[in-house]
């Protein structure tokens, strides 16, 4: 793992973090390679170790469907929390922007580990809630800014 502390493993001791990382599989992605697609079953959670992942959604631009970036994930950050949250379907498409390495943690392995180590499960769930909450708050603010502009356009 790179020097960056994974946001998902915060508050865990180095030994606990190592045990969790040992559950994962290192996946190498070439530039432009797809990590997962929109709507695909989500069985894994990913920690970005090196490189960069872009999260996109399809959008109609000039009559053509184009992937538009909605977020970018850097080393230490988590990708694909849908792997731990029902209904276990990815709601975005993830692609490597450059040579990238991620650690893929399977849901089944994580849940078994959490059952054996409840404190680790609790800490990771809290960290995951922070990731999800941060995204929710960012998009909430973005949505409100967009709404404000729409209202201004309509009233001008």
């Amino acid at each position: 793992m790179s020097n960056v502390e994974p946001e998902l493993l915060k508050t865990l001791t180095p030994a606990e973090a190592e045990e969790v990382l040992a559950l994962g599989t290192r996946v190498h992605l070439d530039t432009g390679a797809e990590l997962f697609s929109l709507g695909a079953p989500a069985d894994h959670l990913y920690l970005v170790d090196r490189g960069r992942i872009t999260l996109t959604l399809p959008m109609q631009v000039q009559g053509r469907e184009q992937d538009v970036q909605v977020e970018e994930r850097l080393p230490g950050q988590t990708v694909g929390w849908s792997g731990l949250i029902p209904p276990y379907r990815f709601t975005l498409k993830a692609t490597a922007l450059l040579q990238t390495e991620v650690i893929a943690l399977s849901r089944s392995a994580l849940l078994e580990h959490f059952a054996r180590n409840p404190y680790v499960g609790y800490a990771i769930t809290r960290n995951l809630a922070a990731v999800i909450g941060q995204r929710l708050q960012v998009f909430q603010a973005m949505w409100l800014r967009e709404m404000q502009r729409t209202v201004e356009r309509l009233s001008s």
Partner: protein
Amino acid sequence: MVMFLMAVCLSMFGLAVTAMAFGAATRDERPLEAAQPALKPVLSVPLSPSRFFTDLPIAPALPMAAAARPHVPIEVLLLQIDRHVRLEQAAAESFLDYPTVASLHSRTASPLVH
């Protein structure tokens, strides 16, 4: 001499026929109108502007901005969308760091907004 007289006669006859035809074509119609019952005035039908050599429908009145908007290449538009999302995300994250009304509605430099 006989041929000359014949030519003059034919010319006079032709002139007379021409004069009669001219008179018939330019005859005053007013006496006939007076005899007819009052006619309804002809309604004026708005004509569409002439459009020679084109099958394009008449364009509806477009807003000036839309009519004057230049065609943006898709690559440029995608870059603008990308920049817009990044700027908006940065603004939203800045709001989360220091939540105030001013930071929530801070102005953006995005070309998609201006």
